[in-house]
């Protein structure tokens, strides 16, 4: 089984409607029931991010996103699937549930 990251692409934060949240919950339950679930979560806006550079002696903290873009990752799922065809199908269901475009990416 391989793991895949499904990133939800969005341009606003916490914008899901009640129906979308219900659909997401139902999708999550389905993932768990079929053994695909690893983890999922929604993310706060990029403006709340802090960039941390610990490569030197003292860590340096910088306010704000490392990279600014109109669209960003608003949330994600990590799923397990035997191969890409299954992962694509789950990503399509996830996209329908949250009513957003998603990006599917395999873990190494």
């Amino acid at each position, binding site marked *: 089984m*391989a793991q895949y990251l499904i990133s939800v692409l969005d341009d606003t934060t916490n914008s899901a409607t009640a129906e979308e949240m219900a659909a997401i919950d139902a999708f999550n339950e389905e993932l768990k029931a079929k053994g695909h679930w690893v983890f999922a979560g929604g993310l706060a806006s990029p403006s709340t991010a802090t960039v941390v550079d610990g490569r030197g002696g003292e860590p340096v903290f910088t306010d704000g996103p490392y990279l600014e873009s109109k669209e960003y990752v608003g949330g994600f799922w990590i799923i397990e699937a*035997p*191969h*890409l065809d299954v992962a694509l*199908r789950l990503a399509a269901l996830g996209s329908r549930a949250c009513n957003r475009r998603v990006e599917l990416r*395999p873990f190494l």
Partner: protein
Amino acid sequence: MTDASKVIARVYREEWAPVVATLARRLRDLDIAEEMAAEAFATAVERWPVDGVPPNPGAWLATTAYRKAIDRLRREVRREEKHKEALVLSDPPEPLGAIDDDRLRLIFTCCHPALAMESRVALTLRMVGGLTVPEIARAFLVREDAMGRRITRAKAKIKAARIPYGVPFREDLPARVTGVLTVLYLIFNEGYLASDPGKEAIRGELTAEAIRLTRLVRDLMPDDGEVAGLLALMLLTEARRPARVSASGELVTLAEQDRSAWDRELIAEGHALVRARASPPGRRLGVSRSSPRSTPSTPTPGTSVTPTGRRSSRSTTSCFASTPRRSCGSTGRSRSPSSTVRRSPSRRWTVCRWRATTPSTPPARSCCAGWAAARSRGRRTTGLSRSPATPRRRRTSSVAVMSWAQRARRAE
């Protein structure tokens, strides 16, 4: 050329795809499969002139390539490779689709929708068609190293994203088959008129391979009108192959062809496919059935094409007009992809579909334009007259957006 090198050249054409496909199934790695197949052929080049050609060259190559792969995997120390070795040695049975054919599995992998269309075509021509990277680069009008990188990237994605090696889920088949048909069609095209001016104009092994694979897809989806349509189109075109080249190797125009040399069996089979698609209700058909444009020109069974009749002259001219390269090529030259789509929004299929989704692609670099230019170059260098193309040019916009079934109806 010595006898042994002639045999090797022939065996390469015939056995490349089966050897790669078998290795891909056993190794689950297209890269290693391709590399080991190439090494096996290199060994054959060294040994066959000395030791003689083995009685079953294909089996010899498959065994040699497989042994080389095992040796290589044993040398590797990484855990992943060891895991793969275990997989190879146990060679586990796997769930099969309706059809068990290594090459069909390979083609579904190479034509996966997660790959860009250009990559799908290039990868299939390399892995299944056995064309070399320079040959494919010429067909696309791109540099060799760029094409090499494209193929390498595609193979890397197949590996990293775990694109499965197998026939897709049944419910995914209709969508997946459309992509496969495009690729098969382009392989057929390469055989119909080779892109390399230095080679013989018609490469029968490619057209035969495209037909063979299309037959396999049809076995998988016997009710699909588009599969039947493409197969019919290929058969009706292939039927004229014996008459398309003169004794001196020049391409012969349709008007001058010896029609008694046309393959009547293929014509009959192509006609039967088209007619079977025309009648039964309730099946998924190509747009031809509902299209008023194609209906009047479709011959009735009573006036069907015969290889010598007057009727055949007219109807096979339209076959020529709807042969793949012109319609694809002319569109690539003269129509923007968006206009092609806008003009026929209801069409389910267009040859230039991938261009339509990437309107920013420069035409000269696009797949269609590449094939078009390669084809016209091939036609010039092989001496094929342009005359059949010219009067038909006005119709190309409609030809380009035809479904396979519709093209086959016209070809009939």
